[in-house]
């Protein structure tokens, strides 16, 4: 968890530096926002502080379609 946190900060810095060098301000903001959301999410997840699962949401969203299938396959 700590290694990943440190790595995230490092990669964040390096990548931001690269994007800034392309003189593209808007995109560096987009990147920064994305990273600020995503990196702590993963770090905390791996540290087992939070339990965050995208796939579960996906499975839930697919439920109406998948239930007939489940029925079919469970025969």
């Amino acid at each position, binding site marked *: 968890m700590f290694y*990943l946190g440190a790595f*995230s900060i490092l*990669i964040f810095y390096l*990548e931001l530096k690269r*994007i800034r060098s*392309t003189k*593209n301000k808007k*995109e*560096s903001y*987009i*990147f920064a926002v*994305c*990273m600020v*959301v*995503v*990196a702590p*999410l*993963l770090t905390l*997840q*791996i540290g087992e502080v939070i339990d*965050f*699962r*995208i*796939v*579960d949401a*996906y*499975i839930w969203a*697919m439920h109406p*379609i*998948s*239930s007939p*299938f*489940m029925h*079919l*396959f469970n*025969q």
Partner: protein
Amino acid sequence: MIEKISVKQFAMLAFVNLIGTSIIFIPTVAANYGEQNAWIIVLVTTFVGIFVVLMYTLLFLKNKGTNIYSLIEKLLGKKLGLLIILIFMSYVFLNISANLWTVTQFISVQILVGTPSTVVIFMNISTAVIAVRSGIEVLTRTAEVFFPFIVLSLILLCVMVLPEVRIENVLPILKSNKLNLFLGGISILSFTFLELVILLGIMDDVDEKEKLNKYFLIGSIPASLMITFITLLCILVLGVEPTSDYTYPIYVLGQKINIASFIQRIEGIGAFIWFFTNFFKICTSLYVLMKGIKHITKTKDDKIWTIPISYLIFSCAYNGYNSTFYDFDHTTYVPITIIVGFFIPLLLFIVSFIKKNSNTFNKT
């Protein structure tokens, strides 16, 4: 610089994409449904697969070779198009993370016992990100370098395991439950050919598009036959019960190799094949996903998305499937693959057909 890949390279990617992951799961899945006739199901899906591949290439070529994303937008309009694109992308995302999860699981269970899976995922996804960031050209050329080794290992594996074959394992041929064969066929099709829908995303990078039809088939059919053969071998060597019980039958197949008591237990070959094909599959899908994000957000620099998205994929592959994978496989993954891999292209195909007809009608 516009990067281009040749049709031959595309065929290689198709081969690698089809082999990746499926080579390790298809024997199990097929044996579950078809028992001793598992290989027949895979063989039949190969024939069905020809039509799937032809549908993809026709869809692409009929629309003058535009990018899949702009194609969807053009045919279905802005709003509906966006929805379809999002579904498509979510599928690609799911595909990447599921593949990553399976390969990680395999490595941490079979190869690196004791190493935390986090590290393995991390190594895998960072290598994939590096590959995708270097562009499609580098990606395909890397695949080109490893391609002969992958094919060689496959052949080697098949040839070396031949002495262990027990013919009685496949008998009696053709005696089994027809509904099961059908269901198995569907799920195998969605694990193999329907996943190739992702390749629609890189078709516009190909150099000589008119030859795509032929080369897509050249790439995918041998791959599917290879899977058939491996399934057959699994059943011939291991038997039906073990094949459907083992999670990684091809790895066990490698362990069975014993030539003159010296060349034995070279399951590393199986690991090699699977790791590399799976890796290229992840990379291709990631590239297609990046292309989609670039299309939606219209950012100039598509690299900015690679890192955040890879974090999300990491997160999914970390524990997203841990408890639910086998449920997920049949209940969520198969339907979404059928929707994205079959119904969406079919819809696009029909819409483009109607539009074309109305266009010609208007002109005359």
